[in-house]
């Protein structure tokens, strides 16, 4: 089997490792597979763009930007999620 052809990756796989990809935490082989998938897949490229935009927007947020009620709701949602709710 061609070594190059073995590198196909599914959209679902990419979504699962996108955070590691953006943090530069993937090994070279996997990072290359992700990038080759991005070349082929406009949907995943758009997902990456939105992901980056979200990271950029949240970086600009300070804790005090959050209204108390929203903050409480958010914390409750995280607590429920951690308890499997």
């Amino acid at each position, binding site marked *: 089997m061609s070594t190059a052809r073995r590198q196909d990756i599914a959209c679902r796989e990419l979504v699962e490792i996108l955070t590691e990809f953006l943090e530069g935490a993937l090994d070279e082989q996997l990072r290359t597979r992700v990038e080759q998938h991005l070349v082929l*897949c406009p949907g995943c490229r758009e997902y990456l763009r939105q992901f980056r935009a979200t990271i950029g927007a949240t970086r600009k947020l300070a804790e005090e930007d959050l209204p108390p009620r929203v903050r409480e709701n958010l914390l409750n949602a995280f607590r429920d999620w951690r308890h499997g709710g």
Partner: protein
Amino acid sequence: MPSATGDTGAETPVRAWKFLDSGHIAPFGGHVWPAPAAGSPGEWVRFSGREIFACRIVDLPWWIASELWEIELEAPVRAMETQVAAAAGRLLRRVLAWDSATLHAYGVACAERARDLALDALTRDGRLEEAQALARAPSMLELCRVARGLAGEARERLSSNLAGYGAESSMRASEGAAAAAANITANAVVAALDDPEVFDRERQWQAQWIAERAGLASIPVAAL
């Protein structure tokens, strides 16, 4: 000639090729590359903890994007399976022959090769009228429509399978997704010949197409 992976042995800066998104933006990292100005190369780019990646001609089909640039890489240059890497690089010039029309033509050329595989298989199967219908398709969209119809019939046949590849490849070409059209065609060749090794051969054909249409072949790429 370098090995498939490892140091190319180059001790002087090496010229290679780099695809970028519109506005000379790195497709994955979002970095805006400094463009050449007033006849001088762009500024050297060096990232902390990350290399600069570029293409040999044979690598081009893997990294298609809207802009193609000639890049100078700082030695030593590391050869990888589908790209080369160096600690620093700078843009030398944009390859103007690689424009939206050439990109579209590349996708169409690849889709037509997938169509031809289906045509051969249909003819061998005695499906002559269907082969003629496929051959007559005047556009990528029509080719996609006809091939899709043929792919739905007798799915176990190789000719139907290849019509399916032809439908997918022509659809991608019509959408302007040339890289995807090329990849589907390379997979169609594997299916047609039942030989995984021909995938790389089809990629080489694609690389040669790009090099010829973009006028890259005449530029020596030292040590690559």
